[in-house]
């Protein structure tokens, strides 16, 4: 991956591998706690890799404070935990956590790190789509005083309202074609039809149905907004030596990064309201991996909202601001196109596992195990995360 003549700008490329993946079932309505689901997904990732959970020596949890490191030690029978952390950038956390795991492994501080997350979006006491929003309700959201003193009294309480401020200004500044949002919605749903774990499998979405769905918050229709499901997912990140020992289904991490926008907890006062953390993160990750945008075979892009997929394509440099809708036209992002996006259906149509399900799908694709949804000749893929008020993360994987 790296040219021999250049001085390496990092020590991570191909030093860490994803050796195992695990997911719970994705449902609407579970009796299990998030803690139990995350622990079960972590166990499944170990089993997928072929190691005993007791051999884990590192834990990184995305977005959640529970399970604690103590919960993991007890549940997995861990003998000697050498590193742990909890990453707090919303949906950008899982991908950022994987990059941190790669760094710790490259530094020799651990060899077998579980990276996990999960959330009961459907079964939560205050479901995000409900009329029950309250200060601190979502949990682990930054800028609580801004929310409580400025936004809630004005009637801004939920993510679709926060992000609408970005979307409406994007349309005003760039005159982007709203048809792009419909194309993303339909494509995600189309891909879900091929995915055994997708909540929306068996429920195709037509253009007529999309256009008939109500606008909840301008500019978002019902079908521009991701699922609320219950579930958890985890991956096992290991050293190169461990990957060789465990066998051929390990996928290499070529590069990755997290990034933050200016005014990270306050969209309203962001000087450039279209700024997103993924812009800085993508530049770092592509430089690290030493590849061009057009060398990416598929992309699993964080899709809490259809417009956010378009915006990430723009900020990552696949196209200019405002051109995201043009980029997705003509079948480019569908399976069979030049850059298939969210081959599992995404948060929109598979499940909302904070984007850890996007990492799992990328690994499945690079293992050649995606069945009917397999991207032909898949060698290099990327996964993005988007979180809180515009934080971003990215990881580039290859086989």
């Amino acid at each position, binding site marked *: 991956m790296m040219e021999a003549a250049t001085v390496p700008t990092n020590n991570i490329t191909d030093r860490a591998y994803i050796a195992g993946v695990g997911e719970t079932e994705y449902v609407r309505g579970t009796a299990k706690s998030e803690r139990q689901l995350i622990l079960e997904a972590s166990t499944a990732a170990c089993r997928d890799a072929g190691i005993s959970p007791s051999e884990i020596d590192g834990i990184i949890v995305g977005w959640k404070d529970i399970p604690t490191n103590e919960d993991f030690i007890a549940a997995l029978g861990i003998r000697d935990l050498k590193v742990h952390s909890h990453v707090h950038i919303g949906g950008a956390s899982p991908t950022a956590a994987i990059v941190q795991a790669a760094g710790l492994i490259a530094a020799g501080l651990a060899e077998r790190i579980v990276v996990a997350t999960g959330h009961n979006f459907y079964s939560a*006491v205050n479901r995000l789509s409900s009329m029950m929003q309250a200060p601190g309700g979502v949990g682990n959201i930054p800028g609580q005083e801004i929310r*409580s003193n400025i936004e809630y009294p004005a009637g801004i*309480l939920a993510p679709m309202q926060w992000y609408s401020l970005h979307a409406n200004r994007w349309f005003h500044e760039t005159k982007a074609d709203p048809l792009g949002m419909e194309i993303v919605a339909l494509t995600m749903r189309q891909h879900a039809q091929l995915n055994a774990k997708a909540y929306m499998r068996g429920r195709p979405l037509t253009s007529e149905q999309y256009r008939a769905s109500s606008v909840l918050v301008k500019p978002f229709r019902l079908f521009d907004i991701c699922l609320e499901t219950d579930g958890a997912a985890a991956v096992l990140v290991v050293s190169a030596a461990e990957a060789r020992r465990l066998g051929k289904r390990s996928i290499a991490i070529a590069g990755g990064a997290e990034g933050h926008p200016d005014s990270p907890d306050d969209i309203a006062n962001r000087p450039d309201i279209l700024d997103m953390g993924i812009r800085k993160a993508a530049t770092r990750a592509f430089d690290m991996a030493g590849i061009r945008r057009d060398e990416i075979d598929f992309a699993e892009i964080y899709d809490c909202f259809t417009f956010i997929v378009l915006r990430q394509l723009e900020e990552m440099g696949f196209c200019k601001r405002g051109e995201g809708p043009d980029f997705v036209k003509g079948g480019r992002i569908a399976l069979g196109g030049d850059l298939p996006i969210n081959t599992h259906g995404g948060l929109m149509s598979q499940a909302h596992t904070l984007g850890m399900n996007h990492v799992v799908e990328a690994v499945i694709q690079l293992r050649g195990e995606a069945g009917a949804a397999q991207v032909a000749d898949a060698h290099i893929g990327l996964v993005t995360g988007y979180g809180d008020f515009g934080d971003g993360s990215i990881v580039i994987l290859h086989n």
Partner: protein
Amino acid sequence: MTTIQSATQPLPLLADSPLYTAYFAALREGRLTVRRCAACGTLQWPPRDLCGKCQSSNFEVADVPASGEVFTYSVMYRAFQPWFADMLPYGVVVVQVCDGIRVLGRFLGDPETLACGQSVELQIQRSESEAPIVCWRARK
């Protein structure tokens, strides 16, 4: 989930947010204010512990115009808290009141007419608990 949340207006934290004390006191007097760093003069909104430019923790109150242009906005067709259920649809605007400062507030008017660049002026509402709430209406 054991109780249905009653329709109580979401109110500012007030007593829990010392950084906002001067702002709400000025609003009660009908003035829209932000903060100015006493060391380097940079305007700051929202209020934070330190000046992001020079890390001083000394601030002065700075009046800003009580009118401006809509920088961005949202229109709600769904309520996320019962108090707003009877107002649907309602608008929220982010108003550019001066260089570098935008003030968010509910729009008092037909939200279907909202557009970026529209001129608005401040209208301060009193909540049931007397906490002042920033709202904006179209400027004639």
